């Protein structure tokens, strides 16, 4: 099929960007969205133009590197990562708008690449269990009830792609932060740092310039890993509990 792409081009963090139109021809419906962009980039290189920069790595939907706003939706029309979106979801003759994640806490680096290091700092502020190597007790010393283990797993699935922030009208990172808080606070191993974890991570999240949460739920709709919206409710409960104790 033949498509018209309108892609956000921005040469650097401080330059102005704009939508630029490209035509791509003979796109196979079997291609992934990123392979379609690869095709465009191969042509651009041969024409002596700079290819479109975008983050990607595993192309299996698990590393969380890729992500772009496609026709106004984070990761596009399917509930998956951009790398797992295939061209069969588009029609011949379509015009597709492709933009980077839009959020003030994710400044654009170049074209479709944004800076998501704020996420790393949120994790560094408390998204861990302090367990220096070698200090661990025998794994079966503390049984974890299966429901708690399942809740922890469900929230641990977050891949840190940032779609939740991009989809949120406020650019909030509540779903990302709550996923880690709920993962670790659900486990007995996470209990000793339960209060400091939620207070510090929420504090860091605010410091990074993410917006507030107004319960619109776009985050959970865009999340390719299905982190549930009630994750935020649970974090709020943890936060109130910790704040009261403090």
């Amino acid at each position, binding site marked *: 099929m033949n498509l018209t792409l309108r892609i956000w081009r921005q040469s650097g963090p401080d330059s102005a960007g704009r939508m630029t139109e490209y035509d791509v021809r003979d796109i196979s419906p079997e291609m992934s969205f990123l392979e379609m962009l690869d095709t465009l980039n191969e042509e651009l290189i041969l024409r002596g133009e700079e290819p479109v920069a975008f983050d990607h790595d595993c192309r299996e939907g698990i590393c969380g590197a890729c992500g772009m706003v496609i026709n106004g939706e984070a990761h596009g029309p399917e509930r998956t990562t951009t790398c797992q979106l295939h061209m069969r979801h588009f029609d011949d003759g379509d015009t597709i708008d492709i933009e980077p994640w839009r959020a003030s806490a994710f400044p654009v680096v170049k074209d479709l690449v944004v800076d998501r290091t704020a996420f790393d700092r949120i994790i560094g502020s408390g998204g861990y269990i302090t367990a220096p190597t070698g200090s661990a*007790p025998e794994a079966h010393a503390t049984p974890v009830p299966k429901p708690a283990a399942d809740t922890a797993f469900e929230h641990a699935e977050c891949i840190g792609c940032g779609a939740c922030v991009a989809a949120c009208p406020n650019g909030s990172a509540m779903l990302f932060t709550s996923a880690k808080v709920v993962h670790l606070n659900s486990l007995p191993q996470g209990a000793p740092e339960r209060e400091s974890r939620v207070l510090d991570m929420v504090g860091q999240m605010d410091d990074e310039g993410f917006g507030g949460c107004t319960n619109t739920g776009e985050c959970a709709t865009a999340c390719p890993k299905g982190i549930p919206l009630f994750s935020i409710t649970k974090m709020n409960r943890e936060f109130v509990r910790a704040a009261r104790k403090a």
Partner: protein
Amino acid sequence: MSTYSEYRTGEPVADTKAPDGPINERWDRRRFEAKLVNPANRRKHTVIVVGTGLAGGAAGATLAEQGYHVVQFCYQDSPRRAHSIAAQGGINAAKNYRNDGDSVHRLFYDTVKGGDFRARESNVHRLAQVSVEIIDQCVAQGVPFAREYGGLLDTRSFGGVQVSRTFYARGQTGQQLLLGAYQALSRQIAAGTVEMHPRTEMLDLIVVDGRARGIVARDLLTGRIDTYFADAVVLASGGYGNVFYLSTNAKNSNATAIWRAHRRGAYFANPCFTQIHPTCIPRSGDHQSKLTLMSESLRNDGRIWVPKAKGDTRPPAEIPEDERDYYLERIYPAFGNLVPRDIASRAAKNVCDEGRGVGPGGQGVYLDFADAIARMGRKAVEEKYGNLFDMYARITAEDPYTTPMRIYPAIHYTMGGLWVDYDLQTTVPGLFAIGEANFSDHGANRLGASALMQGLSDGYFVLPATINDYLARHPHDEVPDDHPAVIEAVTSVTDRLYRLLSNNGDRTPDSFHRELGELLWEECGMARTETGLRKALDRIPELREEFWRRIKVPGSGQDLNQSLEKANRIADYFELAELMCLDALHRSESCGGHFREESQTEGGEAERRDEEFSYAAAWEFTGTGEAPVLHKEQLDFEYVHPTQRSYA
């Protein structure tokens, strides 16, 4: 005609660090004999760690916890994205929680045998010992392993092993283990003990007075070339499967760090030992950019077949039962669809080569769940494999519940890597290699669920114990910025980047990478022959010359330039590919993942030749396109006696 293949055999190389004595006491003895660094002095030592996967992430966090100053690098935007994250199946550990006869010795035995007797016994035994501690460590970090209703950890049997020793977190074990290591690392980054450089790629190793003292790295956002100095350098940069272009590796996984180290004196061992995974989704066309693996647990219930007739293009449902060839069940009646990875892969290639392959280009075989659904019911199949079926459906738009899956083998893991001794130190003093970047533990074939085990073993437990000895014995002065070795390393990096940028040819980096990958897959893939390898050895230097003549890299070196990154990595693949082919040519036996058609039994199985090849081949670099020098490390088997594998 290239003279590259006229290699010379030099002095043998030997591991001098493993203590002798009973194998189960060696690790304790080594830890006791290794010198320690006084805790108060540790912060004065800087250690560079390149890579943040299971091995690198675990090592960086642990070294920082011990008090060292760690400077760490990854090319990704975050240390959480290293490709360990994509591992699905699980992690082995000799916990014997099932009381099913498992033990450290059995895991050791299985790994040596699975590696087809091409790994060092001391290392493998240590791996099996340490495996037990890994699970404890990960549970303490909050890794959400699968659990039973009683709250204890669940395990499963994996890859044809007869005990249930594989711990898992649904199909995302790698992700959960990596996030555990990443979180531990993040704690140290926040504490200021790890200086983390994301989006920064190591482009050369700095060797001063024979010791590894730092690296040259490029900031991928600004293009800035910087030097970083340390008392020791640890490479945890992963394997080199991407040399084949199409593999299950992440798109940007690359061999540059280990190859640059090899060029600076680190021997490269067993480069031809590559692993091919039988259950990947076949390519859908020439646009294919990477391959996706599906857990081989699918083979527990799926039946593999192709049409009996060549060129049969009927849809699978229209091919009657008696016109199907369930070839694995036919050839290997005892193991059937559960034969080891290499055997399943080669059999698939053989039937496709006969013209009986299915799907686009005839490069696929069916993996059929119709019988499993009839036997267990659709619901049970859904519970067991639902996420894999969904992934398959998303990629191919076919419903595996109603039409058989199509699968084909793909490059998945590389057992070869930098040669290291028992301390995981390379032949360059002060340079260590851990995880998939080294060659140490898997011999000629890696068992399922053992990659995660080795990465974490090296990172959490082995390297942090052994590197002390090196740091304690070698107090270092500062390296001056204008040391000739530093200037030479920086100049060679900048010259090469300039050459790539200014060449302005007419071919893209990817076009070269694809061509090299196809050549390697054809001649140095699942089955190798002397003729084919010689052909590849003639062709690779021609391609390399063409690369440097015709490569086109747009843009500048002063900002994010992904084409430049690619081209620079591909340049190294051309050299590595040549060494892989030479290694495969010189090893005229078959073993593990290395199958030489000239060396097979009457039944078509891999035939090892222990009298000639019971050694690890460690290659010394002598110059681009120049014949390397072979150093053999003799492998002796005191505890596990070599036997020929048989699955008939």
